[in-house]
């Protein structure tokens, strides 16, 4: 086996809801992803707004056809997808917002 195939086959271990992953509802289907909602200061003009920058890492194969504006439910909160950042290894980081585009 190659390292690449090892990593690919290990993805379910990383994306395990008994570990760090959470359930993500997309198109009425439950998938898993690693969700982060870290602090982000919004610096517009000279003043700042305290906010967060929610994002979730999921398997690309779980979100086929997903586009900007799609909705995901994570921890009972509905998020709108504002960015789709693929890493080329089978994982995708979805940038999220509570407000629609």
């Amino acid at each position, binding site marked *: 086996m190659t390292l690449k195939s090892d990593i690919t086959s290990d993805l379910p271990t990383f994306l395990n809801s008994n570990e760090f992953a959470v359930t993500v509802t997309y198109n009425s289907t439950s998938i898993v992803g690693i969700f982060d909602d870290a602090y982000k200061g919004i610096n517009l003009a000279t003043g700042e707004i305290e*906010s967060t920058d929610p994002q979730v890492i999921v398997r690309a194969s779980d979100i086929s056809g997903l586009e900007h504006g799609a909705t995901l439910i994570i921890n009972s909160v509905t998020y709108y997808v504002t960015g789709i950042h693929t890493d080329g290894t089978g994982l995708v980081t979805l940038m999220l917002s509570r407000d629609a585009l």
Partner: protein
Amino acid sequence: MTDSIHQDIVDAFKTLLQTITVVNGYETNLGSNVYEWRPTALEENELPGLVFRDKPGKTDIAIGKHQHNLDVEIEIKVSGSTVPATMRKCIADVIKCIGTQNTIGGQCLSGLAEDIIYGDAPEIETDQANKYFGSILMKFTIIFLTDPWNPYTNT
């Protein structure tokens, strides 16, 4: 000791901005979150919020008085899925609010100032993270008089 006229004007200006509420006939409740020189970040639940900063400008000699030009920056922060429309409402509300003070040939801010002049066009920015955010920067100049070398009186 009484406050300087500069201080009284800032107090009156803040009170004026706090009248921007839907109940008072405006489109937003921007007046519910008004801060002067706030050094810390606004929280999401404080939006829409308004921070103003008064920056003393040039002082001229005029008819035996000191004529002060007090530059005021008004920074407005909003959020929500209708940010562009909300920003337009906030701009309109601030102009309408300050416009209540401008009477031809009259004074404003409870007689403390001679005039309020609308400065450059508003600067607008947006960003999206946990929410959709917008920011507006508006500039005004408040002109007021004091007795020469006496910031406390205008006799």
